[in-house]
């Protein structure tokens, strides 16, 4: 029973924390750039405001445009039930493994891209086309990173991977793990629309991918999409944090360990957000046609990860 409560609590925590995480990255970035920056809770205000605003829908759009935000949000939230955020093993661990997580996220991207095409605006089409290109090219890296993790953990189920790494801490520092981490980090940047692949802060048509796709959205639909995007960032951060550095994740499901789990989760988020902020301050956006090169670099990293997992077997 406690397991099911925890599942719901974990999903709720993800939903609540996600906008703050985005705000944290933005705030850190602003501080690094010598700006004062909006406080980290600014995204909550934005979401609240969007939920209270009226929706404007294009006259060309169909039911799909109105359904897509819900599909995106639901599929993203479904993933939070499968990813180990606070504790393992949870009852839904057997419902979906890492492959399911990847394809659930692809489901959201698929519908969002369709919704980008629906109003017939050239921006939406451009965003959809680019988003799908990046998503497709990131797929092999993700699959290989999964392969590397599965090789050392003997399972693609997330709870198993975490538990295995906890019992054999040496594995966390193994080259396979480190390389897979690096590969997955690049994919995280690509999938969550961060620099250097996409610029989350701009509406300049030449550079935007995600923002172009959702240009026609407003009001509560936009709120759902923004929220889902924030949750996606949180999911990837938890994957990076908990799969590769699992310490802190509660395995005993007692109140004490859960407090530790929350604290360590927050610490990991701060570190990862800091890394992203530093990276986004240091580097410029890549030209769109350099992005495949970056993704193929991440692919090579993942391939090396698999190879070195094979080497050390």
């Amino acid at each position, binding site marked *: 029973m406690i397991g099911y409560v925890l599942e719901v609590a974990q999903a709720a925590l993800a939903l609540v924390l996600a906008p703050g995480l985005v705000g944290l990255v933005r705030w850190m970035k602003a501080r690094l750039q010598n700006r004062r920056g909006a406080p980290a809770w600014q995204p909550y205000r934005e979401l609240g405001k969007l939920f209270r605003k*009226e929706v404007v829908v294009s006259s*060309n759009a169909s039911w799909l445009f109105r359904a897509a935000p*819900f599909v995106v949000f639901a599929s993203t*939230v479904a993933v939070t039930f499968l990813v180990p955020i606070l504790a393992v093993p949870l009852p839904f661990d*057997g419902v*979906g493994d890492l492959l399911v997580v990847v394809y659930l996220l692809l489901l959201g991207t698929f519908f969002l891209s369709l919704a980008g095409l629906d109003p017939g605006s050239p921006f939406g089409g451009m965003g959809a086309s680019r988003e799908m290109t990046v998503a*497709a090219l990131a*797929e092999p890296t993700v*699959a290989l990173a999964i392969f590397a993790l599965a090789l050392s953990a003997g399972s693609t189920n997330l709870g198993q991977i975490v538990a295995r790494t906890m019992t054999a801490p040496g594995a966390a520092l193994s080259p396979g793990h480190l390389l897979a981490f690096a590969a997955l980090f690049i994919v995280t940047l690509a999938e969550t629309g961060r620099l250097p692949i996409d610029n989350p802060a701009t509406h300049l048509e030449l550079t935007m991918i995600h923002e172009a796709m959702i240009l026609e959205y407003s009001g509560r639909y936009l709120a759902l999409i923004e929220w889902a995007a924030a949750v996606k960032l949180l999911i990837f951060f938890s994957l990076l944090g908990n799969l590769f550095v699992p310490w802190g994740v509660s395995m005993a499901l007692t109140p004490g360990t859960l407090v530790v789990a929350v604290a360590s989760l927050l610490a990991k988020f701060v570190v990862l957000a800091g890394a992203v902020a530093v990276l986004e301050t240091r580097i410029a956006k890549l030209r769109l046609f350099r992005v495949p090169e970056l993704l193929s670099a991440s692919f090579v990293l993942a391939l090396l990860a698999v190879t070195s997992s094979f080497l050390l077997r």
Partner: protein
Amino acid sequence: MAPAPLLLAVMLAGYAAGALAALAARGALGRGLVAGCALVGALAGLLLGAVCLGAGLAPTFTASFLPLTGLALRLDGLSAFFLILIGVVGAAVAVYGFGYTEAYEGRYSLRWLGALLNVLLLSLSVQVMADNALTFLMAWEAMSLSAYLLVLTEHDQPGTVRAANWYIAITHAGFAALVAMFLLLSAGELTTSFAAMRAASLAPQVRDAAFVLALFGFGAKAGVVPLHVWLPMAHPVAPSHVSALMSGVVIKMGVYGLLRVTIDLLGGGPAWWGGLVLGLGTVSALLGVLYALMEHDLKRLLAYHSVENIGIIFIGIGAGLMFQSYGLTTLATLGIVGGLYHTINHACFKGLLFLGAGSVLHATGTRNMEEMGGLIKRMPRTAFFFLVGACAISALPPLNGFASEWLVFQTLLGGSAIPQPEVAVIMPIAVAMLALTSGLAAACFVKAFGITFLAIPRSPEAEHAHEAPRSMQVGMVSLVLLCVGLGLAPFAVVPLLGSSLAGLGGLAPTAVAFTLALPLHVPGTFGQMSAPLLALGLALLLALVPLVLRVLGADRRLRVADTWGCGRIGQTARMEYTATAFAEPLRRVFAELYRPSRDLSIDFHPASKYFVQSIEYRSEIHPWFERVLYDPLLHGLRGAATRVRRLQGGSVHLYLVYMTLALLVLLTVARWRT
């Protein structure tokens, strides 16, 4: 089993009656009879397969007409599975065809269309039950010829005859390989039963040769790269319900044949067999989807996706063969089960997509996506059905495409169990290519659905499109339900498929090991997932989110306004993104493969070159295998034909001399051969 012979008789009679009725009756009655008889036949076949599989005992039925005709039939698990496949798609196609062929009335020969459709279904059904080489080859040829004639239905359209010629040429090259293969296996006696071939012990070289011939023959039918060139030509020009049948079922006969020969008759082989199949599968999957991305003819796009999906099926089977050669029978079964699962899934969603494309073609009269758009408002049901198919083929959970791709992924992940690491490293590459393929497939179907059905119509035809008639919708709905059902029930399908393979080629009867528990946990692999729970969760969340929003009092006002166009008022279809534009980033990324040729001509205003009067942009890609493989081949063939023609002098005496010489040579050989 009592019902089995009865069902078999009903099935054969249904198809035969359909073929005869088509020739006899005309008009709506004729179409109705064709559809009805085909439906009866297909459903009887479906039941027959289900009875056999459900009984759980493998060979349930044998019939031999040997003394009379040399024909022999036998029904085992594998045959039953493919009978179900034929029945499922055949039934949907039959119903759909009733409405779809109405437009052919008076334009093309409906009699032959109906008759050949039934003959095709009949030969397919006999094919999978064949128990000796002669039956197999006769059914194979009947299938190829009826499919050829069906492709030729719209013979007055440009490109149709050329496509049919390509099809018949390649399929007959394959047929020749198959005859040679069976001659090798049966030591020259084509009426030898399969049971005798199973028992025969052949030299390794003979087995290798037989395998290569089988791979060529069945690969040509299945449309594996580089033997697939006919597929994107022939499937689009056939009537859409025939396209659905061809993509859904006919090319799967290549899969059936490959399994029957390599696993069943030859009992598996060395690791390189599996490696070759796996490699061909990987290349087909990737190239298929890459060329599909560049295609803007809706049906050609779907045809290229058939190449892709056959590739995925071959990946599963190839991995299975490899595992079998290393004695990892559980993993081997799993790989083949994954391949078979994808086979039936592909039959359902590709059938559905072709039927959807047929409805679009029916409504707009064009296959060119650049002239479509906005159809979701004019034909909402077709749009919804097509969307389900698009999600399924993109392997999105919880639909059926995901279930089988997940299984194939798990099989490949199990590749680390192979004792030789230098062989095992093939598996991660296959995993990466499969992942890239499915990502690109998703991108391609965003394009296919988005450009065809969403936004504003790009042509008057699209603007005046209408919803498909009821019978066509029924055909599509049945496949939609199957796509959902097969996606939700992997826990039931996988053990069933496992049992259909039990006992074939030394595969362990692992059926019992595949549990029927809800979370699908397959032995020997890593992962676990539960499609029904996943779907339930998604559905719950989808229902909960709007509810919660309403309870929390989110603003519910909605205003309809124009799309934002940088301040420009009045949006036209010319401002929309096109299919070409959508695929442009990927064309750039894979430019080294596509080598696109570009042609840009601009007409300037005579007064100043800053005013452009018209721009014409043309870009084409010429697939490399045509460039590298077929162009030289055709060139050589033509040269050889020219040379051979010199023999043809036109004089009757010369021909008589040839005949006499041939006779003399034959007599000499016959006399001194022994």
